[in-house]
């Protein structure tokens, strides 16, 4: 049987989609109007790193000391090997072991 989408679902998800897409495209289109030099440019250049760092730091800290150790190991492995997958697995292994042992 082919399910039907209820009108209210159509609207609710549709609005969520419009909001999300507008933010994605809006950010890009707004940024192209920003000045491309000086202080503003420096801020925009720092943005990706600052965003990514802000994304991870609270989840690292939430894991406590072992979270910091796992993140440090991940950083070392990626710096040494340039292999993101290996680095990710090393970090996960620390957390996996810690949780298994109930530390």
């Amino acid at each position, binding site marked *: 049987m082919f399910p039907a989408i209820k009108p209210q679902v159509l609207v609710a998800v549709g609005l969520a989609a419009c909001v999300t897409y507008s933010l994605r495209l809006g950010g890009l289109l707004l940024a192209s109007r920003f000045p491309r030099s000086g202080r503003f440019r420096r801020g925009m250049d720092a943005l990706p790193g600052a965003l990514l760092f802000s994304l991870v730091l609270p989840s690292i800290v939430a894991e406590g000391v072992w979270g910091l150790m796992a993140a440090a190991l991940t950083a070392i492995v990626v710096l040494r090997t340039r292999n993101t997958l290996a*680095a990710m697995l090393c*970090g996960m292994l620390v957390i996996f072991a810690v949780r298994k042992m109930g530390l």
Partner: protein
Amino acid sequence: MKHRKPEMIRGARANVPVAASAMAYGSVLGVLAAQKGLSWLDMMYMNSAVFAGAAQFVMVDMWSNHMPIFEMTLAVLVINLRYLLIGASLDPLFSGRGLLHKMGMMHLVADENWAVTMSEQRNGSATTWFLFGGGVFLYLAWSSGTLIGLLGGGFITRPEDYALDFAFTAVFTALAVGLWRGKGDVLPGVVAGAAALLAHKFLPGKWYIVAGGLAGAVSAMLGPCEIEEAEEVEDVPSY
């Protein structure tokens, strides 16, 4: 363009680690969605139209026979506000591209393929098709994960047991290390980190990403700079 296909494949390949964890998390969302009575079509509609993990979790949580349309839209707006900054940070990658190209590419931008692309761009080899290829691959992984969870009861119901929740943290950490540019990043890094931790403690949802990203960017804007400093000091009025 001739390099379209190889670039998309390269982007897809680079996203394999994040896609694996996205799939596992998708299956968790699928299980929750099944409990809320979503059909596979509802699920796929949401995957295709919204395509944003955290927002979809909240939407499924708010799902009911009488959809709270206004609250749901507002929640999605707040959770996804970070995409405004993510979109802005992609401006250099899209420079010289037309509006249609931008419109077509931006829908499939998620945290994961964005982060992979930013890290790739630091090596000077990212393209918009690399970003898009990663997005398509992520979409397929995310969608199959959600459907497996919805229809099959999920292959992983407790991802924490396998440290899969830390997979995102670990891979984003590895990518963040790749974005490091040198001493000039210390100030924005410290400011972003402090703002993110504070916002994470005191504000709900995903505000901490927005707060940290903005704080870091503003501190880089206001902070000292090795090369341009000389000319800009003159802007400061002297008494």
